[in-house]
């Protein structure tokens, strides 16, 4: 994988990532019919397990939203996968670096 797709090397994208983080929170709450308002999902809160309490069914749903909205196809065999869903911010960074629309 070439350097230019690593989100960590794109400091210029931080404003986009922050905006995307909020956008994704809204999309996730709408797609999953979550109980909590999007504004209450912290950017560093874990999405899986004890954090937001999402499971694999939810993750597949989020993958669909991300695919439709940003043209990003997630892959479970990429080493990034666990990191991507570590938090909303990680997901936003990944989408920001790989989005095609």
């Amino acid at each position, binding site marked *: 994988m070439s350097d230019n797709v690593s989100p960590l090397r794109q400091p210029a994208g931080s404003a986009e990532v922050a905006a995307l983080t909020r956008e994704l929170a809204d999309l996730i*709450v709408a797609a999953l*019919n*979550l*109980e*909590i*308002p*999007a504004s209450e999902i912290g950017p560093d809160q874990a999405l899986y*397990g*004890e954090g937001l*309490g999402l*499971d*694999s*069914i939810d993750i*597949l*749903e989020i*993958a*669909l939203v991300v*695919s*439709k909205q940003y*043209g990003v*196809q*997630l*892959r*479970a*065999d990429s080493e990034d996968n666990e990191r991507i869903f570590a938090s909303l911010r990680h997901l936003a960074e990944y989408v920001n670096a790989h989005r095609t629309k």
Partner: protein
Amino acid sequence: MLAYRAGRPIYVREFLADVERVGAVLGSGAHVLNVCADRYRFTVGFAAALLARKMTLLPPTPTPEVIAHLQRLAPDACCLTDEDECDIELPRVRFPEGGADTSGAGSTAVPGVEAGQPAAWVFTSGSTGTPVPHPKSFGRILECMRVAALRLSLRAGVSYAIVATVPPQHMYGFETSVLLPLAHGAALTAERPFYPADICAALAAVPRPRILVSTPLHLRALLAADVRVPEVELLVSATAPLSPELAREAEQRLATRLLEIYGSTETGSIAVRHTTESPEWHLWPAVTLEQRSGGTWAKGGHIEQPTRLCDVIEITGGDRFLLHGREADLVNIAGKRSSLAYLNHQLNSIPGVLDGAFFHGDSRAGEAAVSRVGACVVAPGLDAAAIAADLRRRIDPVFLPRPLLLVASLPRTPTGKLPEEALRALAASQHKPAPG
């Protein structure tokens, strides 16, 4: 050809060598909890256990509560895993990796196994809060899959490659992605693709003809994603009925047939239907249905003992029937089954919970969207997060209640019964969804 991993073929000789190596480290206990995520390794572990006359344990999600129960049933059980980290509290056997044997040495003589030999315990959630084991003999599950090959119209002598999105530990996955390949001489694939792009990659890595074994959940995601799906000869879906619309869309997009399998953990697969042609299910030839005492029972053929099915069934002809949904107590979330009685028992076993009850959530709008369960709980000293954390140790996370509502009391009748309507009305009055 027995299997593919990342597109690399694995032949019988290599498989037998792997089975022998794993058999040597399984120890002396008579039970093996096989949690290998890689389907090939799972199959090697299963075969090694079978040859050593050990029982493979296939519980639902191995939560600490389930493991504690397993240990009471089978105190000598060990856990065969292919992960470096495994938090299951059983004596651990790490799957021993060996180099691919390309020397041409080693035996290709397939060891025999008696048809009646017990091979696995599968589990259902009993109504008393403890998982109930169901023994499966190797001969019967293999016979069931020989019939499945006929009902799916698999061509004799053709080596299909079977890609599956379901885990090998789930009864449907165990049958169609591990035993169907063994019964028909098809090749299994080690990977378990999850995202739509993974499914496409896994299919592209194996030669045609290919079969994709999946579920409504994964198929819906696959169809919604903007991906090009490699050509498949046959699509198989199970765990929950597909709507005719989704089935039609799948057949058109993938230019192939979609066949659905119906079964249960206790009976294994017993019927198939071509959804776009008829809503009727076609039973396995030797299996019969019988309706008595308000339920439908399946028996005969590979079925170990007459089993009551937890679905509302209308028999329409000799070997045909219609499915009219699940019975009230059954919970099926994306193919994971439990019962309200089981979930209630687990909820009420939490210290500090005085009373509590699960209820079915409303099916959300939209094709095959997943319907969850909710719960009302009386637990003055606890908060919802603490209850959820305790439940997580007990039940599969898909059954965690959404919403989990803390209430002062449940609307029980004077005799202690809890009418579902009263419970849902209470939940609706308590439940304020997030704005917007």
